[in-house]
């Protein structure tokens, strides 16, 4: 990889890490959900800083080129993150639904009580 490209990629990774940390500080992301993003971009950063590592891992896993490996692994990780987000989403859906129902019934009971 050219030095320029490495530089830009590194800046990008650092930017994402800082952005995620910023979101955590603003309480827009829970810490437990931020960790997977931080680890992912930290790993990318390590690969950028140690080009030899990238080459040897590529060879080890049997990819033709480093870029193929990076793309494949990234896509796999992103899909995994996305599916787990869908799982979390669905379970929250369920919880919210049952909360709305129970609160609404409670409200009705309370109003009936006050009427009497």
């Amino acid at each position, binding site marked *: 990889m050219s030095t320029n490209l490495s530089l830009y990629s590194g800046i990008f990774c650092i930017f994402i890490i800082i952005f995620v940390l910023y979101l955590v500080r603003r309480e827009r992301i829970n810490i437990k959900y931020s960790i997977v993003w931080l680890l992912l971009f930290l790993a990318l950063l390590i690969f950028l800083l140690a080009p030899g590592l990238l080459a040897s891992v590529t060879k080890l896993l049997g990819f033709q080129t480093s870029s193929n490996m990076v793309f494949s692994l990234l896509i796999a990780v992103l899909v995994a993150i996305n599916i787990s987000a869908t799982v979390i989403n669905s379970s929250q*859906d369920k919880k*919210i*639904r049952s909360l*709305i*129902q*129970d*609160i*609404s*019934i409670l*409200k*009705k009971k309370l109003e009936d009580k006050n009427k009497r």
Partner: protein
Amino acid sequence: MKILLVVPAYNEEKSILKVYKKITEHNKHNQLKYDCIVINDGSKDKTEEICIKNNIPYVSLVHNLGIGGAVQTGYKYALEKGYDIAVQFDGDGQHDINHISNIVEPIINGEVNMVIGSRFIDDNSSEFKSSLLRRCGIKIISFFIKLVTRKRVYDTTSGFRAVDRKLIEFFATDYPTEYPEPVSTTKILRCGYKVKEVPVSMNKREAGVSSITAWKNVYYMINVVLSIILVGLEKRK
């Protein structure tokens, strides 16, 4: 026997009072009395105001949940208040109050756990049978339910249904959010409950729009069929 009519209503300001009046009217003239609870599913119109003004018993959901979530609220309510039978009765005037006694009867006699008011059992029974395409969809769903449960259900999407105490308990804890009718029917058939269909006629809705809009139809079919197959893959309880 305590019977509760669960009336899900989303933006039904034009028809909800009429539906309620029909119920009270019916109770005046008949021995079999029905309680009713309107589940106002976060309506944006005056449905709630009309309920308050006319003393219609209602539960107002604090957020919109969609038909499945609304109906399940009714089952939860029926469970807590100790009802023996819960009848799903639409708030848009599609269902005829005079048919309820037919729907409830097999449950009172202890024959079955659920009765579906069906438009398709007997050809003369219903003037309103919905469009050809819709009927075709209902047939396809019927085929898949048969495949998974070995039982034939004709009017798979009918929202005019009555269930006994056991199924009130079942639905209060486990009711599908989306496409609830065919999916829940499949589920309880798989669990070994008995279901019967009774012919009813339905009217065209008096006002408001159906929850199934045209462009969603294909998506709806894929979803329902997939859900039914998935229920079929679950272990029998």
